[in-house]
């Protein structure tokens, strides 16, 4: 029995929205895991209590996002089979082992040491805490690697044979190191690090604006911005080369859709377009002349162009709007992040980084940009693969389970409601932790005295240790 088109469309919405929700948390927690490990490592090595204060503050923000990442990830592992039974049957022998590897190498590692990292302080030595922090970070990177691997195999399948409509591995090396993986893994690692770097820098900027916890604020923003300034040029380079050497070679349709031309020969780069796929044209199209030739082919003569969508049969074209706009969101986000990081470097050289309030406000606004750009990138990669589930081999339309649409609509509505509640609760919790501020240091550092006592609603109770000089909320 063929599933109805409504069922397939709604299943795609379900997967897309739950995956985008999930992606928000790994996008932050992979970077935060590394940041937390670096902070504790710095404390372990130098004994500077400032690093310990930063570690404790960031650890508790990290922990709740990490929990949301875990539970929303469990959803995805089951969704692979729930609505997509035929897909699960077809790709299980190749993708199943990859995600088992993710569970074995990453989830167990993270979960085993996460408890020690978050609750073990005072019960284990500093060295064990540091090792645990490193293990959680390593686990997060392994997780990124394997999930990227499974997804990349669907983009550029290699090392398999087809038996009765099922993909079976013939060469694991080729399947694991498929062409897309080799580019997308570094691209994704950089993306999550950059996302976390802005999140970190923005919260540092918030404290600088509020003139609270200044030593922590300076160090936090500085570390975030340094990471962003180092990583962004690399990321722009990797992303650019990925489009040229991977997407263009192995997934030309995706690049065509991302550039959003219906006809051949536009050497300009579309800054803005409203595609009308039914009529095979753009309603509105604003191009930067000759820029596509430069951006996509590094050809400065300005006369090379990506082909138009009409070169692909209409039933095999990806839906242009999400690919085009996902790509624009990613690129514009990347340019914005690069510019702000560049300004930051200049201000730092002129020693005005911590005092220019307009810049601090700008950094605060950059808080979600990395995550948004990362999600934009995923929209490109997933909707640009359409109408294929396994590129060129398995159509989305022949991948679904035979189920009634009613239960799907109910579950879709439930996901949206629950996720809306969760993300609201998470944002409020992070805002609460940030407003409450870090626990004070044992010895007040210069410039910090008296700042936190202005905190509204702070109870005048001494902290647990009795060493606190400023009140904290119990």
């Amino acid at each position, binding site marked *: 029995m063929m599933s109805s088109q409504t069922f397939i469309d709604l299943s795609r919405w379900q997967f897309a929205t739950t995956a985008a929700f999930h992606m928000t948390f790994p996008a932050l927690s992979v970077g935060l895991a590394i940041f937390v490990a670096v902070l504790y490592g710095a404390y372990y090595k130098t004994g500077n209590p400032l690093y310990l204060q930063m570690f404790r503050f960031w650890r508790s923000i990290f922990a709740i996002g990490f929990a949301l990442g875990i539970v929303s990830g469990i959803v995805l592992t089951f969704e692979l089979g729930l609505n997509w039974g035929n897909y699960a049957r077809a790709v299980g022998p190749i993708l199943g082992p990859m995600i088992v590897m993710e569970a074995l190498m990453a989830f167990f590692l993270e979960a085993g040491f996460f*408890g020690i990292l978050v609750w073990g302080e005072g*019960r284990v030595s500093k060295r064990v805490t540091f090792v645990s922090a490193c293990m959680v970070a390593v686990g997060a990177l392994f997780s990124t690697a394997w999930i990227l691997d499974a997804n990349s195999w669907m983009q550029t399948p290699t090392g398999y044979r087809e038996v009765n409509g099922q993909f079976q591995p013939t060469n694991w090396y080729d399947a694991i190191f498929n062409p897309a993986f080799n580019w997308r893994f570094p691209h994704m690692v950089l993306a999550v690090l950059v996302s976390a770097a802005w999140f970190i820098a923005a919260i540092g900027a918030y404290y600088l604006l509020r003139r609270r916890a200044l030593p922590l604020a300076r160090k936090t923003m500085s570390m975030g911005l340094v990471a962003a300034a180092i990583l962004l040029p690399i990321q722009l380079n990797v992303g650019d080369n990925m489009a040229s050497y991977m997407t263009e070679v192995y997934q030309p349709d995706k690049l065509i859709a991302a550039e959003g031309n219906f006809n051949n020969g536009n050497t300009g780069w579309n800054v803005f377009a409203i595609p009308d796929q039914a009529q095979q044209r753009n309603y509105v199209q604003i191009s930067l002349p000759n820029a596509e030739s430069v951006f996509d082919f590094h050809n400065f003569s300005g006369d090379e162009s990506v082909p138009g969508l009409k070169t692909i049969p209409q039933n095999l074209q990806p839906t242009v709007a999400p690919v085009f706009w996902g790509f624009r969101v990613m690129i514009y986000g990347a340019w914005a992040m690069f510019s702000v990081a560049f300004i930051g470097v200049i201000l730092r050289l002129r020693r005005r980084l911590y005092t220019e309030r307009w810049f601090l406000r700008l950094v605060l606004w950059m808080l979600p940009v990395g995550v948004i750009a990362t999600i934009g990138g995923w929209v490109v990669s997933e909707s640009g693969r359409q109408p294929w589930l396994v590129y060129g081999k398995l159509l989305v339309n022949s991948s679904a389970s035979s189920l009634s649409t009613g239960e799907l609509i109910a579950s879709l509505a439930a996901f949206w409601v629950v996720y809306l509640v969760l993300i609201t609760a998470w944002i409020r919790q992070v805002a609460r932790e940030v407003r409450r501020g870090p626990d004070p240091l044992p010895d007040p550092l210069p410039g910090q005295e008296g700042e936190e006592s202005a905190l509204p609603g702070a109870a005048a109770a001494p902290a*647990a240790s009795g060493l606190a000089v400023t009140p904290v909320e119990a």
Partner: protein
Amino acid sequence: MLFFLMIVIVFALLAYVVLDGYDLGIGVLTLFQPDAARRRQMLEVVGNVWDGNESWLIMLAMGLWAVMPDAFATALPGLYIPLLVMIFGLILRGFSVEMALHRAASDRTWTRLFGVGSLIAAFAQGVLFGGLLCGVTVRNQLFAGATWDFFGHGYGVLTGLVTVTLFALAGAAMLQAKAGGALRGQMAGLVRPLALVTVGGVALSAALLPVATSAQLHLGAVDRWVPFGYAVLVAAGGFWTAYRRAGRGPDLVPFLAVTATEAAGLVALVALYFPQIVPPSVTLYSAGASRETLAFMVIAICVFVPGTLAYHAYSNWVFRGRQPLDDGAGPGSRPVVAASAPRPRSAEGGN
């Protein structure tokens, strides 16, 4: 290889039932705990273990997907509703426990949601397990049944309730070993009534199974009824031990007894159902993946599972002893100065 991997998957199922079973059970028990301080104490027992325990669920699901793709691709659509309900329950409780632990002890909402989520997840797991035992209609290697098939004319409700009481029993038994103070006595007192209710429920489910299921249950051959018989004896002995040793030391015995019962129950079901994986028509042999996949899985498991078990054992060792540990480093207290690791003083029950 296939047989070895089937054992691994059954082991993952057992690990999940034993480990997440007790922490779901503790969640259910928080709903009936009138004392706020004790509720908090129960949450703290779950706080540093729940994510590791739930990793076994992912291992189970993805192992099944890799090794027996046909089973995964038919069982999930066939058990759609209970699976999704379970997922919502797990989302709710996983997020709530972290929220509750990172907020003040007076916070009631998240603690309550943690209990509700645990109850939903445990009940849904029972329903879906009952649905699986009753059988899933499969045609041309795809699910071809109806939406409410899993319900099994009400059999699912029975298995759902039994699972809730079984997990609550495991939770109470675990708290007898892990909780300090008045909570220990309170929970030890719950082990007996919960054990009795669970025994009754399990017996009733077992008696109704031949009527409810569309699968063939084999007990004729000697290699089936002998393991089945031993499993039933071990399960009965486990319940008996948990009942007898409730409230008495060594405090871990009731929990180990419940674990033995759960393991024996799974062995009994394997003896009844083998080689059906998604009864009645998807079997171990029809669902198995290709040779290259199986070889990869065997190597991956042999390389990584021992390490996994080792560091989970280490993590449990770090948090050995009773909660709350009186070293001032308990969850939520956010000590300002890291104490230089005093050993937990009341470690009598840990081993």
